[in-house]
């Protein structure tokens, strides 16, 4: 336990001294928040609330980039092998990476929620417990994916290629960038095989529909199972030595991380509610937005039309 805390403190400290960390973990997520809220939602509180799920989802998913890159750098530079000669274990190294990443991601998520509430006047942030649970399990499970990537790639170049290959479908098909309901039926069904879809879907339900934890059990349970599997795989594949290359067959282990969502995707396509719920949520947001748009001009009229003001005056 002491080793774990010692390493976690070090990882947090090093990240805070890293300019890349500031850019990718603070500036970029906050930049996305303003892009979504200010430009895409045009500051409309109801739309901002709808887009908050995708924004938080992007922030949480990004965990795997930083974790894989740092671990591979540590291995390539021979830093890991220095720790190998101490009583610190592979589990200490892996879990401390996840804990540090969690500690560093949470403040940005809180900042995004506060900005939505106080700068864009989102009337309700939904169910905060559900948001907290989804952000937490999402951050640690996507962080674990980063650890598997670090374990199955031999060089930083390979790591970046694999990160890109995973990142693009995760952000474009999950509803994190393109609204899920705008995707074609086929693409929506493909998206059901991605963990990111369940994360973003869960966050939207927690924020827009104020679903409590009991109503978002599917994303919570699936991401938890995924976390356990990815952490187990990364601990089995962990390598301290830079020259300890991994064989092609072992690289297939990365495919094993897809198993839970492969099964879930098949089940969800047949019996599930994700696609239907997405439609309902979108419809609800559009209706609320339309009525808001209708209410606004009426209020403006009331405040500028002198006759109306006269009408409002008490008659003798």
């Amino acid at each position: 336990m002491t080793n774990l805390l010692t390493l976690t403190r070090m990882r947090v400290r090093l990240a805070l001294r890293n300019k890349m960390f500031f850019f990718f973990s603070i500036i970029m997520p906050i930049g996305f928040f303003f892009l979504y809220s200010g430009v895409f939602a045009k500051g409309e509180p109801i739309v901002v609330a709808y887009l908050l799920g995708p924004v938080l989802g992007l922030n949480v998913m990004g965990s795997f980039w930083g974790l894989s890159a740092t671990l591979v750098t540590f291995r390539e530079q021979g830093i890991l092998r220095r720790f190998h000669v101490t009583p610190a274990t592979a589990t200490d190294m892996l879990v401390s990476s996840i804990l540090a990443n969690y500690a560093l991601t949470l403040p940005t998520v809180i900042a995004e929620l506060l900005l939505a509430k106080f700068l864009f006047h989102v009337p309700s942030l939904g169910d905060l417990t559900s948001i907290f649970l989804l952000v937490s399990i999402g951050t640690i499970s996507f962080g674990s994916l980063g650890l598997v990537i670090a374990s199955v790639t031999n060089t930083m170049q390979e790591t970046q290629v694999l990160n890109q290959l995973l990142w693009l479908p995760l952000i474009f098909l999950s509803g994190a960038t393109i609204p899920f309901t705008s995707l074609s039926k086929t693409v929506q069904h493909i998206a059901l095989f991605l963990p990111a879809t369940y994360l973003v879907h869960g966050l939207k339900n927690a924020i827009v529909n104020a679903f409590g934890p009991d109503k978002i059990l599917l994303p919570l349970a699936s991401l938890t199972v995924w976390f356990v599997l990815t952490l187990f795989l990364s601990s089995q594949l962990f390598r301290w030595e830079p020259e300890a290359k991994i064989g092609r067959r072992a690289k297939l282990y990365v495919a094993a991380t897809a198993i839970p969502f492969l099964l879930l995707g098949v089940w969800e396509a047949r019996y599930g509610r994700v696609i239907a719920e997405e439609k309902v949520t979108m419809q609800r947001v559009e209706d609320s937005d339309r009525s808001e748009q209708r209410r606004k001009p009426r209020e403006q009229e009331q405040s500028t039309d002198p006759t109306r003001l006269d009408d409002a005056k008490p008659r003798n």
Partner: protein
Amino acid sequence: MPNSVLQVENLTKRYGDVQAVRGISFQVAEGEVFGLLGPNGAGKTSTIEILEGLRDADAGMVSVCGYDPRTQGDELKHEIGAALQSTALPDKLRVMEALHLFAGFYKRRKNPDDLLKRFGLEEKRNAFYSQLSGGQKQRLALAIALINDPKVVFLDEPTAGLDPQVRREIYDVIEELRRDKKTIVLTTHYIEEAERLCDRVAIVDHGQIIAQGTPRELKQASADKTRIEVRLAREESEATLGTLEGVSDCRSLNGNYVLHCQRPPQAIVSLVKHLEAQNNELVSLEIATPSLEDVFIELTGRRLRD
């Protein structure tokens, strides 16, 4: 060996087709500085990394402080300190933070401030690792190796890649540890390092120990012969030069001739006479007192740095 803290018997290690270690055996007594001397690729690092628990041996018996590194690695790691050959620390880690970080892993800890003072790093306590010179990085590595007050310290090529002045600084530090009766196992390919720092040396070549003893014993085994190294204008036969008066043996090494002799003046006179007779010329001549390099040349026919 009655008070040995480290025993190695018939150690073997193979990487694919390469047999890196072929049946190495030795013991190290408490308070002793033991050196594994040999050229690059001789199997020194593989051996020391098996002792540290970083690699598993294919066969053989290893005991360090009474622990088997393969099965009792967790216990062993509390008892040993190590400065590895190819390693680093994160660039943005400060010197003092590095010592505190590593101290956090052990049950037994030394005061980081005392170690900073001892290794002359007080002024650098707040410097980032990336801001340190090669010598300072190595001194920090040694300080970290001692943070848990280890029973055995492993130093893998502690001065490799450092300039001669910095190398001498590191020698002073290791000599201080030796005075403190710290048990040290070091690997090196520098003759001077082995002769100056080690109580006993094992000469390693092609994964085997080819000679073992105190530096003095090893040199005596090569009959305390003075080495004369000459470069000639034209080639000569090794056999002919080896039979000159006063010369014990002759080997050709990279275009030079290395003559071992017990009576150097006589050997030089007979060599000059021979060259005159052959109408050959002496381009250069160097005389050196016997060293472990000569022992290595005698045993392998090669120089250590070849």
